[in-house]
């Protein structure tokens, strides 16, 4: 490794997330092309772009759901490019899914409890949690935080869409998250529920950074400090929310034009 690369990685050690030249191919289709992004610890960033811009593929590469075809991914300085998803999650990475990915056969409480258990010891424990189980209380608190206490003993299959979206967020906040990827958390939410979502996002502890994919600008630009614009699998523009909003090229592509 040459000294330039060493210095670069030393600089990157302060970053929560550092992608270098990440490319993901699906056969002949390049979903991500040479994506290089650095996100500081605690930074909150929106990723914008039309459908097919590669936003969700970006998330899948970061979490390891699909490994990148080439490039490297560092999480708090550690090269996690070839780690399975669960190893990245145990290091403090979290994500939500665009289409709720929950456990419909289990109760709300059990869903959140599993999330808490997944990032702590005793995943294979054969002993039932007792009344004073710390993770049960942690799960209770999370359920309460996303306003689902009233339905916590209901099976997830019976929940309304908005409640499922809230549960989706609760699962991503279990344990001690250091960085969260939110994939369109506001999809299908009512205006009231969107306001609650904004409240949840803005009240996250300051050390928790996140990237949010969101089409709703009212939500996205109120909860982030920086914006990355993607187009056809590439990074198109990066900047502050106001800069991106007023950028004529961006407006042409995304905000104004809309249809492609």
């Amino acid at each position, binding site marked *: 490794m040459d000294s330039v690369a060493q210095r670069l990685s030393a600089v990157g050690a302060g970053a929560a997330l550092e992608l270098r030249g990440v490319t993901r191919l699906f056969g002949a289709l390049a979903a991500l092309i040479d994506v290089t992004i650095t996100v500081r610890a605690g930074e909150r960033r929106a990723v914008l772009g039309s459908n097919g811009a590669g936003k969700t593929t970006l998330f899948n590469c970061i*979490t390891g*759901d699909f490994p990148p075809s080439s490039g490297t991914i560092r999480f708090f300085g550690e090269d996690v490019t070839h780690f*399975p*998803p*669960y190893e990245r*999650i*145990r290091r403090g990475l*979290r994500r939500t*899914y665009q289409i709720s*990915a*929950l*456990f*419909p*056969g*289990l109760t709300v*409480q*059990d*869903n959140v*409890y*599993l*999330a808490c*258990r*997944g*990032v*702590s010891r*005793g*995943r*294979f*424990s*054969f*002993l*039932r949690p*007792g*009344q004073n189980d*710390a*993770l*049960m*209380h*942690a799960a*209770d*608190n*999370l359920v*309460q*935080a996303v*306003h689902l*206490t*009233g*339905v*916590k*003993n*209901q099976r997830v299959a019976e929940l309304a869409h908005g409640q499922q979206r809230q549960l989706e967020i609760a*699962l991503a906040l*279990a*344990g*001690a998250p250091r960085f969260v990827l939110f994939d369109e958390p506001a999809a299908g939410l009512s205006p009231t529920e969107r306001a609650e979502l904004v409240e*949840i996002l803005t*009240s*996250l*502890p300051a050390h*928790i950074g996140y990237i949010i994919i969101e089409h709703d600008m009212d939500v996205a630009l109120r909860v982030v400090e920086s914006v990355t614009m993607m187009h056809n699998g590439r990074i198109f523009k990066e900047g502050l929310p106001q800069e991106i909003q007023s950028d004529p090229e961006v407006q042409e592509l995304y905000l104004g034009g809309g249809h492609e």
Partner: protein
Amino acid sequence: MSLAHDARVAVRPAAEAQRPAQTWPEVNNPAAWIVAVILLIMPLIANGFFLIEIFATTLILGTIALSLMLLAGYGGMVSLMQLTIAGFSAYMVAVFGISGNANISLGWPWWLAVPMALALATIFGTLGGALAVRTEGIYTIMITLAIGAAFYYFTNQNWAIFNGHTGINTVGTPHFWGVDWRADIPFYYIVLAVGALCYFAVDYISRAPFGLALQGVRDNPRRMAALGFNVNAHRIAAYAVASFIAALAGVLQVWNYRQISPGSVSVNACIDILIIAIVGGITRPIGPYIGALIFVLLRTFALDFLVKIGLDGNRFRLLIGLGFLAIVFWSSDGVIGLWQRWRQSQRRPADRPGGGRSHG
């Protein structure tokens, strides 16, 4: 409500945390108590034939099917090799223990042969599971069926260990404390104890982190990985637990018949276990035992019944098949599903005039 404190594991009692204690299985169900008492006093009411041919056999088959229920009901993995694992364990008891085939059996006492058989069968099932978890759905069924079929043909053709198609006969059974434990009544209680132990263990595990995570893997493996779980490790661990349960039942099976031969591990017998589990219902641990009772009753009495009405007695499988069709047609959850639906339809009219409205 701010998330500021909640995103980390903060231990403070939530006000609404008054959930019922679920630390032990339900003990306030009168029907369960009645069944338990009947099972315990069974030797007083049933003769040797019913005790062994019906109830002990039901409990043994039910326990093998229980191991499938654990995998399929909680883990979403349909394994057709559970009987093969039980058969492997039975063979190992015969090979390491005492039998009429002195050239094959090593003659170890039962308390050495049985742990050896359990360990080897658990390893066998876990290795099979490690192969099977690389696939999903119908491919899991095919791989486990292939393992079952391969074992069946292997036992048929291998004479050095498995004694070919004649199998191993006159297998020794335990005698200690002056009791012949294969005598009808002691053996019934051994089978009942092992069956009950496995039943309660599976029921207990279903609410423990391991079991909950297994159900999570069933519902959404990708999300489980995104919550920090090693999904394949969890699946293989489930195979290990299920293999141990099947291996226990295998030991009882070889003591029951005092012999083991390839016919006991045939592909047909593997599929019987699936039928037992499905007919009983694979969502709860009691299902396999109900399915096994129906299966054993049909197998034992359908023959006489068919002969009586002038049909070939060997058609009893036709009855089982028709029953199987009828049950999966009307209830995807076997007899348990039918029972639960009946209970709900009984309860609903009773609830209405009471007016005790439940919210939520």
